[in-house]
């Protein structure tokens, strides 16, 4: 693969602005809550700007791996600090930047233990960024755990519904995932015999035999797949979404689940393409079940956030389905869907956050008629819900379209089942919208204020991204294809 070294270390700069923000927050005394929030906003804003900059600075005509930063860390074991940007991780970096920034703004009204919250939040996001940009297996594993560990505290301390239970469940599931990943990584390291964790070198054809790839793929897929909400290892995700505070739910559903899918792509699929082909049937079955299952279970939820949680299961099933097709279209669609779902679900949680902070309930039965009192807040939620249904003009449509085209082509039956789930997902999303936002206004909510401009900024940003990509999907597709086309054409036949 072609490599271009960085003239300006964009990627490290992203990490530095995260970690710098973290240190700055730690230095501010606890009582200065507004200082902490401003520092968080500025530093996350910087991260966003950097991630946008790197996205557009990437030379699409050149392709390959760009902005490479490589420093040997433990030479004896071949561990390197090795970052780079390609068509697969750039959308995810951009997504993380967007969700991070909007997540900080969504938590603007937080009053409880502000300092600790933002410090942990920054730590988590730094891990996410690190994972997306890293090309060193060892670092990928480290970043993976860095991003998961703060989650437990964030949910257990600042969460709401059955928070300890949710936090515990989530942590255990995800640690089970990393318990599967670590042996597989060690296995690959030993089998390669190159004494390096360098992903690019391990990716060369001929490093692993087909049997080794088939053997290592499954634990890697399942380990990362747990984080991506692959059925039947998905039950942590709705519970975790519900328990987490809104800003954390945004990162959680918007970005963390993408880490899982991205890990499957970056580690499992890139290193073990033979394993990928071998296990594709299984992946497709699990993904198709996830798509339908998530939608159907979502149909009977009574808590606003549970609904979103199960819709995530369904949408991540689409990502999995795309990955399982072993086609270019499926791969493109899956990565696109990762991005689109991240933005959409962040918007959903952000809107629910605003509503919950005012009404103090997430039970759908207690809400109703909110369009009367807070039309703008409702409109944001409705836009996100429509995106979730797959209405064209919003980003998700394109991802789903590509994945479903590929899926029906490769696995007709499973593909058709997944397409049918679109009807169910329309049904349950619209039901939620109807019961929450429509209907006569309720008296107890009559005095609630609508979103003021400043608090509306995060939702505005997310909505804009959804619409922009809905109208011009090629912004992202062209980027993804700089990586997916060489990858697919390099696959052994």
């Amino acid at each position, binding site marked *: 693969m072609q490599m271009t070294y960085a003239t300006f270390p964009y990627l490290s700069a992203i990490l530095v602005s995260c970690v710098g923000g973290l240190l700055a927050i730690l230095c501010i005394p606890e009582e200065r809550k507004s200082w902490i929030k401003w520092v968080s906003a500025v530093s996350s804003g910087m991260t966003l700007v950097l991630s946008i900059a790197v996205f557009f600075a990437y030379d699409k005509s050149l392709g390959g791996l760009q902005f490479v930063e490589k420093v040997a860390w433990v030479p004896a074991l071949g561990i390197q600090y090795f970052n780079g940007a390609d068509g697969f991780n750039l959308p995810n970096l951009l997504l993380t930047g967007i969700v991070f920034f909007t997540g900080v703004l969504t938590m603007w009204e937080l009053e409880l233990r502000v300092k600790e919250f933002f410090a942990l939040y920054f730590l988590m996001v730094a891990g996410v960024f690190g994972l997306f940009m890293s090309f060193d297996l060892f670092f990928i594993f480290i970043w993976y755990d860095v991003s998961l560990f703060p989650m437990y505290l964030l949910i257990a301390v600042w969460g709401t519904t059955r928070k300890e239970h949710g936090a515990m469940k989530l942590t255990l599931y995800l640690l089970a995932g990393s318990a599967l990943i670590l042996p597989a990584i060690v296995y690959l390291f030993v089998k390669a015999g190159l004494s390096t964790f360098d992903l690019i070198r391990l990716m060369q054809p001929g490093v692993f035999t087909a049997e080794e790839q088939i053997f290592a793929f499954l634990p890697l897929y399942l380990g990362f797949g747990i984080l991506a909400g692959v059925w039947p290892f998905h039950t942590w995700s709705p519970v975790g979404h519900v328990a987490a505070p809104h800003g954390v739910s945004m990162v959680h559903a918007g970005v963390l689940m993408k880490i899982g899918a991205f890990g499957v792509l970056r580690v499992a699929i890139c290193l073990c393409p033979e394993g990928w082909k071998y296990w594709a049937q299984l992946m497709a079955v699990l993904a198709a079940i996830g798509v339908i299952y998530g939608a159907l279970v979502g149909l009977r939820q009574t808590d606003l956030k549970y609904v979103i949680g199960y819709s995530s299961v369904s949408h991540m099933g689409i990502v999995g389905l795309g990955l399982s097709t072993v086609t270019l279209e499926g791969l493109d669609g899956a990565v696109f869907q990762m991005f689109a779902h991240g933005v959409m679900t962040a918007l959903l949680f952000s809107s629910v956050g605003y509503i919950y902070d005012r009404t103090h309930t997430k039970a759908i039965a207690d809400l109703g008629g909110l369009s*009367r009192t807070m039309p703008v807040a409702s409109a944001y939620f409705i836009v996100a819900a429509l995106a979730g249904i797959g209405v064209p003009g919003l980003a998700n449509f394109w991802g789903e379209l590509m994945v479903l085209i590929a899926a029906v082509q490769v696995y007709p039956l499973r593909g058709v089942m997944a397409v049918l789930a679109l009807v169910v997902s329309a049904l349950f999303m619209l039901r939620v919208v109807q019961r929450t936002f429509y209907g006569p206004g309720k008296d107890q909510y009559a005095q609630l204020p609508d979103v003021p401009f400043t608090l509306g900024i995060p939702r505005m940003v997310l909505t804009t991204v959804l619409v922009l990509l809905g109208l011009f999907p090629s912004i992202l597709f062209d980027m993804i294809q700089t990586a997916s086309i060489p990858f697919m054409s390099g696959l052994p036949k």
Partner: protein
Amino acid sequence: MTTGLTHSATATAALLATLSPFVAFLVILIVTRSRQQLSATVSLGAVGLSFVCAVLLLAGYWGMEGAVRLTVPWLSAGAYAIPFGFLLDPLSLLMLVIVTTISLLVQVYSLGYMAGDSGFSRYYAFMSLFVFSMTNLTLAPTLLQLYVFWELVGLSSYLLIGFWYEKFSATQAGKKAFVMTRAGDVAFFLGMLVPLLHLGNVGIVDMNSLHPATSISPGMLTLSAVLIFGGIVGKSAQFPLMTWLPDAMEGPTPVSALLHSATMVAAGVYLFARLFPYFSLSPTAMTLFLFIGTLSMLLASTMAMVDRDIKKVWAYSTISQLGFMIMALASGGPGGYFSGVYHLTTHAGFKALLFLCSGVFIHHFQTNDMFELSEKQCRHLKVPTVAIVLAAAALSGLPPLSGYFSKEAILKQLTVLPNPIWLTAALLGVFLTAYYSFRVVFVLCFPRKPEADSEEQTVKGDTAHGGHGEASYGLMVWPLVILAGITLLLGFGEHALKVLLVGHQDARGSLEGWAVDWLPVAALGLAISGAGVAWVEFGHKKAKQVGFVEEEPRLAALFRERWYLDHLYRILVERGIDKGISTLFYRNDNLVIDGSIDGMGKGTVEGGRFVARLHLGMIQHRLVVTLAVLAFLSLYFFF
């Protein structure tokens, strides 16, 4: 002829026609939301521009050879390149003119109808969104673009039906409309994949110029046609997905006039006409379509005979007329193509007129019930009363109105079919249509209880309060006059349209002259007798105003309950999905998956407890164990 989108007057006109409403939509949502008059001005300006461009395009096209295809790349992923662009040919331009004309008139009308509503700006924003989606749907050069905007018109329909979101029934209807059409769209999507996978693209021109003996096998072709037709069934509210349309009447009346009668629901028929050569490749599928069209036509007519809600009657009649169009198209050949599209054109005019007239009554008297309207002396509003009679006559197919010509064209086309059952059904449909149309007319015009206190206002009406002034009435009347003019005159443009749509050869050829001499007489006779029966039962001074169907309560109930289709769906959704599968899966989540995980957790804890019992915490026990182990080890090593 395929060209890029740049440097062409045609392209500019097409762009302006399709995109200006979108600009209006954004401007209203972002900038002028709080200023109602400005929003309306923006929206009207945009749709006016669209209308002018559409007319110019059609005028410019007249006499040109071949279709014009203008595209720019929109997206390419993998093997598939999806262009965005326009396909300008007689059919699309005709449809574009219909859409923009009705949109413009309805938006002017809405100035009066929606005046004073708190959601005035929102209404115009959604209307602009609809016009944008519909015009792009019309001009789409590929099936995929058509599908994109097909979904978007569904979205605008959802938003506009549920426009008065505080009304439970309205939001319920919006949801139902969206989900039911979505069910059809899923079929459409799958159907579209067949040519996509076989041909590599879904350009409409490519699909239509497909050779019968190409890579697609006849079985796949039929499958694809039937699946795409699923989308048509959903959008045009045909059997079995027909019940959303009457419920959609919960939306404001201008919306019903524009979306749910004249244009959006006709998009299904338009798609049929669009892919007419492609569908024609599969005779099996065409027969199925003929059957579905006929069935929907008859079922909807029976439903229309018993409803008291004036808008719902027109909704059923819309389904029924769409069924007529599908019958015509499904009968095949250039004649079928022409008569179907011709009926679509005339129907758009007179059906919009019917709705808008009813809208004036509803707005003025605040009720949807035709008997109440009648009691409140709605016939004193002269212009709408005259216009509604005119439109009803057109709907029934009475000369010299537009409906007469198009319906005769369809009937004549049906004589081509070998099996007489279709013609018989169509003639029965003609009779029923005349009956239910004139039932409404006579009920409205001949009130039983003279001069009830017309000041009393019920709250059943669906309109916003306020805005009853002369100004709003004037705004609402002018579109009626224009549409009535169109209804009167459109019938005489038959030949010109025929030339436009099917070319000179076909227009002069087999379509000239009556295939069967008795047909026009029979059709006209049936229409008049339908009206006559309606007169005897509803118009006549001593008539009880009870239809012959209502004499038989079980039949009436069957018709009123829409042949129990809704019950079936409700059972399916509530019992089958909600209480059945969904609950099952939910339990599976909680009991099986979580249960086994929690079981593993509990097992670990219990195991720990059990092992802990072995540990008494006594140093001496440990020493004993240690020594014993050492002793055994030494035994092992030394001996």
